[in-house]
């Protein structure tokens, strides 16, 4: 026993190049099964004696909160799911997890809610029994519901002390009119405050979205696929279908640039956020992949923009860009913290000049190769432990329902040329797609 535990502490090694398990960049074999009720299970054996990562990915995030006045419920369920069931009331559930020494947590974003645990392999069946039970039979009293809504509001207050949170909240609210990306994952403050009155609604939210067709289970680590599938049949098959897709309104095409200002109740240097509406996540589309690279190429840590504003002129305290696709077309953002107020216009102009340059000139092909290599090694270096491997998968699952998108993205990446980058800059960085928000402190 001691030997096994020591090994599990000491050993987690991936042979990324020596055993060709798979032709794509994702180096591990993935075993799949879809149950009759539509629930998909992915099992990925890893050479990590003793440990198992158990990720339940619900393909519902704040995107699915389409009913007015009810934002924040996806995140709220991340909290409620720990409230227990008849068979495993909260205290018993917690006690068993404690006995298991489980590392457990959850998170929510625009497109997903994830419940993750890392346990020792001997506890897998017990865990699956409990997890399947809470996904099928979650039960909570109105009192529990109201108590948890207080904790959620506490989390909102904590986040609100961060100017980055406030800026993002304002950016999304300004950029979108009808699509649910208008609110952040936390939800609108008024909705969070009103949550305690929405007990009945919460039950309908759970019934509609926590259904097998909308959940993908990932089990990674020291596991045998057939055994996991057999267990999954036993515990998840009784879960009834019933997913009701959200009625999300499509965002109309933006026709003019937008802008806004937001005041942070505290001191901060000014932060400028410039967002451009983009494409939804499409790993097989060269146009999408080229768009996703623009942020790094134009504003990343080796860009002329960064070198000029952060390292040489030292006008900006920091600058970064995030160009990632979501499940529906969302927004790609450049953020710059500016040291002196009088330089705000200069930063805006430098952003515009940078865009113009990339729309006109072809980027250096060596830089593009560097970027491709950077993506590759960055990916490989994330595969350091069972938790790391499992942890990188949920976003792909949320966006596409599987993880084949990883290999597809890298295949498409290999074909992107400097001209593709130029075309993406021309198409996606236009004034009609732009929203600009300036945050300033007191």
């Amino acid at each position, binding site marked *: 026993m001691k030997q096994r535990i020591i090994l599990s502490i*000491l050993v987690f090694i991936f042979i990324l*190049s020596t055993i060709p398990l798979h032709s794509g960049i994702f180096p591990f074999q993935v075993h799949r099964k879809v149950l009759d009720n539509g629930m998909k299970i992915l099992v990925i054996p890893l050479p990590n004696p003793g440990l198992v990562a158990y990720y339940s990915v619900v393909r519902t995030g704040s995107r699915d909160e389409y009913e007015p006045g009810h934002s924040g419920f996806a995140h709220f369920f991340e909290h409620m799911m720990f409230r227990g069931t008849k068979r495993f009331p909260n205290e018993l559930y917690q006690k068993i997890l404690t006995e298991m020494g489980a590392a457990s947590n959850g998170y929510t974003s625009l497109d997903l809610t994830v419940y993750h645990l890392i346990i*020792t392999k001997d506890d897998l069946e017990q865990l699956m029994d409990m997890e399947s039970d809470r996904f099928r039979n979650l039960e909570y009293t109105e009192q529990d519901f109201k108590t948890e809504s207080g904790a959620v509001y506490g989390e909102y207050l904590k986040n609100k002390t961060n100017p980055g949170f406030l800026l993002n909240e304002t950016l999304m609210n300004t950029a979108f009119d009808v699509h649910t990306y208008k609110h952040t994952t936390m939800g609108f403050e008024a909705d969070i405050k009103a949550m305690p009155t929405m007990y009945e609604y919460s039950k309908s939210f759970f019934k509609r979205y926590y259904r097998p067709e909308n959940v993908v289970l990932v089990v990674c680590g020291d596991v045998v696929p057939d055994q996991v599938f057999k267990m999954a049949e036993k515990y998840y098959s009784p879960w009834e279908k019933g997913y009701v897709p959200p009625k999300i309104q499509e965002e109309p095409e933006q026709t003019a640039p937008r802008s806004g200002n937001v005041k942070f109740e505290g001191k*901060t240097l000014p932060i400028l956020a410039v967002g451009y509406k983009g494409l939804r996540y499409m790993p097989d589309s060269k146009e999408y992949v080229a768009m996703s690279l623009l942020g790094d190429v134009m504003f990343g840590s080796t860009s002329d923009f960064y070198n000029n504003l952060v390292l040489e002129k030292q006008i900006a305290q920091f600058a970064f860009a995030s160009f990632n696709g979501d499940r529906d077309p969302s927004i790609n953002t450049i953020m710059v913290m500016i040291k002196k107020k009088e330089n705000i216009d200069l930063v805006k102009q430098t952003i515009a000049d940078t865009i113009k340059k990339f729309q006109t000139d072809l980027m250096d092909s060596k830089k593009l190769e560097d970027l491709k290599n950077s993506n590759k090694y960055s990916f490989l270096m994330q595969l350091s432990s069972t938790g790391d491997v499992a942890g990188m998968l949920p976003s792909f699952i949320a966006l596409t329902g599987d993880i084949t998108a990883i290999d597809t993205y890298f295949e498409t990446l290999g074909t992107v040329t400097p001209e593709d980058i130029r075309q993406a800059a021309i198409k996606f960085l236009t004034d009609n797609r732009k929203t600009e928000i300036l945050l300033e402190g007191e």
Partner: protein
Amino acid sequence: MKRLMLLFLSAVLIVGFSMNTFAVSPIKVVQMKIQNEPIISLYFVFHTGSIHDPEGKIGLARLTASLISDGGTLKNSLKVINEKMYPIASGYGARVDREYINFNGQTHIDNLETFYTLFKEAILEPAFNEDDFVRIKTQMINGIKTNLRYSSDEELGKAVFKSFVYRGTPYEKNVAGTVSNLESITLDDVKAFYKSHFLQDNLIIGVGGNYPATFPDRVVADFSKLPTGNALEYKKIVPEKINGIQVIIVDKPTVSAGIHIGFPIDLMRKDPDFHALFLANSWLGEHRNSSSHLYQVIREKRGMNYGDYSYIEDFPNGGGLNFPPSIVYKNPQLFEIWIRPVEKDKRVFALRAALRELKSLIDNGMKKEDFELTKKFLAKYCQHYADTTAQRLGYKIDDMIYGLKESHLDNFRKNIEALTLDQVNKAIKKHLQYNNLRIVFVTSDGEQLKNDLITNAPSPITYRTPKPEEVLTEDKEIAVFPLKVLPENVTIIKVDDIFK
């Protein structure tokens, strides 16, 4: 597939650890050779930190280390370094703490040569040029003036609390400096600090992964270019005696209140009571885990905040990490209770709730069933503490720093399983107490809070939502839990005066 798995296992289970002091060098080396591990981890850990910041130059150690990790070298500007690191998706960083400066980074084995060359040059041949100096110094000053004071009440509370707990000792100095001190630091100060504090004699090198057999020797030979000798002073840190309950209120416009409670404890990893108190603390407040008793009382039953934890070793960056970081050694360590922000009108109640639980643990000890459950929990949970080579290597370096004869991590389970309830309860009585505490609040209306504390006025709680009868009954006891706070022991500091 089964055959492949066996191949995997037989290939990977060739693991070796060793700690060397090379005969010809004062440099200490911790090696963790792991066959087929493609990620190479490197640590350069210097036994110096903010304890060595000179009077009037607080922040110098951090500024110097930041210039090394985020500045140019004699061979390359930062721009060129970034360009070379970019295609290999690698990098190095510096974590500066009270006692140690830890430079570390990882790279894929394909890129070891490029990575190591740049990393080595950063430490051995820093350019210390004016542009980098101005940039980083400005960032650090802005980091206090805006980020720390206004962007994260949680980190602000932790920073003030740590300085307060160690008041009167070299640990009091804020690692990130103070605004006026940072403003007074010159580039010459940085160069002088580098020259006198980055020495072979206070260096530990850590190497992990499937590195070439000759690599450690090469690294030691390279770093033997650093000066030898060690004239640095490491005075024993003797904390002030805390008399009664002493409070700092950081007064700032906010609707919430974050609370930190604690005191230094003279208990280190090699001490016989360490695991006993570790277990008790895990029950009271395991970090970011719902098994924490404080979490159950304050968050789970009452929905007052996001989480409530306790510690018997320093745990920086608690908001960002799920498991304890390595190389943040302190001697003495500190005991801390961390109440994450609660609504302002519940701040005194939250303090009372935490103190009441602490008192109960000390007066009554752990219950048998809680002891058994926590023992089971830790025996398995310890597997999560370090699940990558880089993290395990960090723990190995800590073993050397803490002067352990056997590995803390490898023997953790054995040591926990050997504990008895009696040992644990004796350790609680011996090392914890509730009469002499230092407390930090980050909140608004400081005068009102001071008055509430010194008058020991009841602090009944009201909820927006109904609560079970047993919670309401317990609330009545919590609301009048005695607070013995003298007016002269409460200091209110305006947020703009923090680390000024």
